[in-house]
C-alpha cells in the first residue's frame, strides 16, 4: 500500500480546515487533490508530509503509521509551489542537500546528482543559482532535489501553479511521463480540473475540508456525486427545473423531458447539470428536445461553442467541427436541444444562489 489517510481533521482556531478526510493511494499511483482555493487540500498534503499535525486521525505511509513521526523521519519527497530552493546554493548543491544530510559518500552523491540533472534535463546548469533560472527550470530543480533521497512517496503542492500556461502544460505532460517511468507513489494538489484530469490516475475532490468524491478521472467527470463536483470538474450548464411524476419541466416553460437518470426524484425544484458537449442540437423536433434560439457562435479552433437561450436560461453547447459544418448553424436560428447525458440534483438552494455560487467560484460567466 502507498498512502492511507485515515479520517484526519485539523482546525486553525475556529476554522475547520480539514474535516474527517480519508482516502487511500495505491503504490505507484498518481493522485490529484483537487479543490478550490481554501478548500483544505494543501493542508491535507502538509499533514501527510508532517508539516502540520492533525487534531485527529492517522497517516500511514507504505503501511507504517507515521502520525507521530517527525518531518525529518518521514522521508517523503515534497515539491513546493514556489519551489523553496535554497537561494544561496547552486543547482547541484540544492540537489545534493538531502544526500549530504544523510552523510552519503562523495562519489555516490556526485553520481546521484548527475543522474538527476540528466533526468530533469538541466545539464549545463549545475553551477547556476536559482535566481538565474526560469520558473520551469526551478521547478525541475525542486523535483530533482525531492527525488535525490529516493523517497517512497512524492508530494507536490500546486507544482505548476506559479508557471505560465505553456510551460505548465509542457511540465505537466512531462511529469506524467516521468511518473510512469519512476512509478513513485505521488499526490499532487491542484485547483485546475484539466490538470487533474490530464495527469492523474485518480482524483480526490475536496470542498470545504471534506472529500466530495474520490475516483478515477473518468468517473468523477461523468458521474459526479454532487452539484459541486459536477460544476467544479469542467464546464457545466445549470438548468432549473421542476420534477413532477417522473418528468422534468424546465422552469418557467412548458418544456418537458423524461427523467432518464434512473434516480427517483421527489416532486419539487431540481437542478439539471448538463455538460456543453452533452447537449445535442438538431434542426428537427424530437422526443425530449427543447426548442432554443442560437444567440452567438464562437469559433474555438477544434470545436464551436454555441450560446443558446431557452426561456430565461442560457445554454452553452460545444459542437465538434464536422458536426457544425454539416448542420450550418446560424445566429438567431431556432433549433432543438436534446440532453444526451445529464445529472439531476434536488435544489435545496434556489436557482439564483447556485448561479451566484458558481459565478463566485469562476466556473460560469
Amino acid at each position: 500500500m502507498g498512502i492511507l489517510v485515515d479520517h484526519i481533521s485539523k482546525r486553525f482556531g475556529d476554522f475547520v480546515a480539514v474535516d474527517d478526510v480519508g482516502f487511500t493511494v495505491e503504490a505507484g499511483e498518481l493522485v490529484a487533490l483537487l479543490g478550490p482555493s481554501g478548500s483544505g487540500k494543501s493542508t491535507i498534503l502538509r499533514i501527510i508530509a508532517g508539516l502540520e499535525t492533525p487534531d485527529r486521525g492517522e497517516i500511514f505511509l507504505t503501511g507504517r503509521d507515521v502520525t507521530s513521526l517527525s518531518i525529518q523521519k518521514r522521508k517523503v519527497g515534497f515539491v513546493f509551489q514556489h519551489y523553496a530552493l535554497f537561494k544561496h546554493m547552486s543547482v547541484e548543491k540544492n540537489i545534493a542537500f538531502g544526500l549530504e544530510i544523510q552523510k552519503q559518500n562523495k562519489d555516490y552523491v556526485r553520481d546521484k546528482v548527475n543522474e538527476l540533472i540528466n533526468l530533469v534535463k538541466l545539464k549545463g546548469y549545475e553551477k547556476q543559482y536559482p535566481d538565474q533560472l526560469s520558473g520551469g527550470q526551478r521547478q525541475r530543480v525542486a523535483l530533482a532535489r525531492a527525488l535525490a533521497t529516493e523517497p517512497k512517496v512524492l508530494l507536490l503542492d500546486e507544482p505548476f501553479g506559479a508557471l505560465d500556461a505553456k510551460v505548465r502544460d509542457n511540465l505537466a505532460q512531462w511529469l506524467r511521463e516521468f511518473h510512469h517511468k519512476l512509478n513513485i507513489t505521488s499526490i499532487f494538489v491542484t485547483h485546475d480540473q484539466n490538470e487533474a484530469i490530464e495527469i492523474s490516475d485518480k482524483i480526490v475532490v475536496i470542498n470545504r475540508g471534506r472529500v466530495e468524491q474520490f475516483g478515477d478521472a473518468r468517473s468523477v467527470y461523468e458521474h459526479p456525486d454532487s452539484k459541486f463536483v459536477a460544476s467544479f470538474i469542467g464546464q457545466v450548464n445549470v438548468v432549473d427545473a421542476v420534477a413532477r411524476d417522473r418528468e422534468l419541466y424546465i422552469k418557467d416553460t412548458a418544456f418537458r423531458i423524461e427523467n432518464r437518470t434512473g434516480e427517483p426524484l421527489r416532486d419539487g425544484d431540481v437542478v439539471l447539470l448538463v455538460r456543453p458537449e452533452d447537449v445535442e442540437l438538431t434542426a428537427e423536433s424530437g422526443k425530449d428536445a427543447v426548442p432554443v434560439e442560437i444567440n452567438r457562435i464562437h469559433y474555438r479552433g477544434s470545436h464551436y461553442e454555441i450560446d443558446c437561450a431557452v426561456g430565461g436560461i442560457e445554454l452553452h453547447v460545444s459542437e465538434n467541427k464536422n458536426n457544425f459544418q454539416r448542420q450550418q448553424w446560424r445566429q438567431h436560428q431556432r433549433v432543438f436541444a436534446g440532453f444526451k447525458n445529464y445529472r439531476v440534483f434536488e435544489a435545496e438552494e434556489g436557482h439564483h444562489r447556485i448561479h451566484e455560487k458558481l459565478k463566485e467560484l469562476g466556473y460560469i460567466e
Partner: protein
Amino acid sequence: MQRHDEIPSAGAVKVVRKPNGLGKNLITAAVIGWFLVMILVPVIGIVKQAFGSGWKPFISSLLTSATGHSFILTLAITAAAVVLNTFFGVILALTLVNQRFPGKLLFEGLVDLPFAVSPVVAGFMFIILFGPKGWMGQWFEAGGVKIVYAVPGMLIATLFVTLPFVAREIIPVLREFGLEQQEAAYILGASRWRTFWRVTLPSIRWGLAYGVTLTIARAIGEFGAVLVVSGSIINKTQTATLHIHQEFTDFNYVGAFSAAIILALLSFVILTAMQRLNRRKGV
C-alpha cells in the same frame, strides 16, 4: 517667425535647458554647502583643537592611562554587547517571525522600546532597579556583586540601548525568506539546528552583519545611559565618550579633542563597513 519658435532647433533646445541646468546646479551647490558647514567644519574644528599645540601634546594625551583605559573599556563593553545581542537578537527575531503566540504584536512593539526611551531615562531606570536600594540591586549587593557604578551596570545599559538593532535588521529579511526553505530542509532530513546553520543563517547573513555593525556603532558612541549608571569614575568606569566629556569639562581641550578624533576615525571605519553591507543586503 512664431512657427519657428515653436519648433526649436537643436541649438534652441540647449538654450531652453540652460536655466534649468543652472537651477539644478544651484540646488546641488546649496546641498553640498550645507553639509560642508554641518559636517566638515566641525571635523576641521576638532582636528585644529587637537593639534593646536602640535603633535606632541596630541600623542601624549592619548597615551595617558585614563585615555587608554577608557578606550579599552569601550571596546570590551562593545564586544560583550555585540556577542550577547547578536545571540539574543537572532533568537528573538526567529521567535517573532516563526512562532505564533498570544500577545505577539504587543511583544513586537516592546522590542522597539529602547529606541523610544531616552538613554538617560533608561540609565535612571537601571539605577532604580539595580541601585543599592533597588529591588534587584539589594539581591546582588547581598551577594557582594556591584552592578550600578560598576562595569556590569554599564554593560546592562549598553545591552538595553542596542537591543533592537540585530532583531530589527533581520526580522524583515526573515519574513521575506519565509518558512518554505526551512520546511524544505526539514523534509530533506535536516534537523532544526542544521537547518539554521546551513539554510537560515546564510540567507540572513548580510542583514545580520548590518545589524551587528549598527550595534557596534551605537555601543561605541553611547553616552547618556552609560553616564548615568557608571558614575564616570576615572580608570574604573569611564568609557571613551565619558572620558572625552570629562576632559572637556576639565578644560583639557587637547585631551578631549585627541580622543574625539580617534573615536571619529572608528566611526568612519564603521560607517564605511555599513555602506558596503547595506549595498550587499539588497542583493
